[in-house]
């Protein structure tokens, strides 16, 4: 709740401005024209309701009108599609992709080639599925892309290290001199 000013008009304006500012923040990701229409509609509603009092509105009048409009957080319910009941859960595909990505990391020490393929697969699935994913799955896909990418990178580094060590100079033991057989008597 806002702290009331000693000047009623300032308090009235402050309450309305604070409510509309909260709506603006809550609708920040909505199309700007639609957001402007919502704010204009709310402003007209408040002005109309207060004008109907036929006297200078008090802060209590404004609070009543704002209460009728409802909590700012509830306004989005009218524009958002129906949410499934209960908390959103990530899809099985998102979970499987994350597991695949996590698997790619320890696989590096077992078989770098397999780890690279698994990591690449996880990154590809995560990036493709990320577009149409809901909020709950999106986080998992991002995580899978990050871990899968790390697995892929580690596998490549491991393979390069192995290649580097096998292509280096080979220690060759100096030939041992075999003493010539001495002629017998």
């Amino acid at each position, binding site marked *: 709740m806002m702290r009331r000013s000693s000047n009623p008009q300032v308090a009235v304006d402050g309450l309305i401005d604070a409510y509309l500012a909260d709506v603006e923040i809550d*609708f920040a990701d909505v*199309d700007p024209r*639609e957001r402007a*229409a*919502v704010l*204009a*509609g*709310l402003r*007209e*509603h408040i*002005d*109309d*309701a207060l*004008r*109907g009092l036929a006297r200078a509105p008090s802060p209590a009048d404004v609070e009543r009108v704002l209460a*009728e*409009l*409802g*909590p*700012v957080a*509830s*306004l*989005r*319910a*009218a*524009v958002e*599609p*129906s949410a499934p*009941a*209960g908390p959103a859960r990530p899809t099985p595909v998102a979970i499987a992709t994350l597991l695949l990505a996590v698997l790619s990391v320890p696989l590096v020490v077992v078989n770098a080639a397999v780890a690279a393929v698994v990591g690449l697969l996880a990154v590809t699935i995560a990036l493709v599925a990320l577009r149409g994913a809901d909020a709950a799955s999106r986080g998992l896909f991002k995580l899978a892309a990050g871990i899968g990418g790390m697995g892929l990178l580690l596998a490549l580094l491991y393979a390069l290290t192995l290649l580097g060590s096998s292509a280096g100079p080979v220690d060759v033991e100096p030939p041992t001199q075999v003493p010539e057989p001495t002629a017998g008597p």
Partner: protein
Amino acid sequence: MVLTGEAILTQMRKGVLEFCVLAHLQNRPSYGLEIASSMARHRHLFASAGTLYPLLARLRRQGWVETTWRQSPSGPPRRYYTLTPDGIASLDAFSAVWPEFRRGVQTVVEEVA
């Protein structure tokens, strides 16, 4: 998880409130506070007046309503919402299927109960 009555109403309102607003506008063009006051007479239909404005903005974006400005007898001009031909057609389509839908729900619920 158990749904509360309010949670069920919230879900159902999303499907029907827009058609109730269209039905209200079928009679005559109307402004925000007037629509809100009309809907607020039905408590189960309309939880808070603020949800009307995102709804009206969406109906406008869909081309189901349009707005005009009219002089108010007490104060600045008001924004009036009017049904478009698409809005009228959508309301007709809703009105055609709603009675059967309502009867079906009622029958099933009564049979189970």
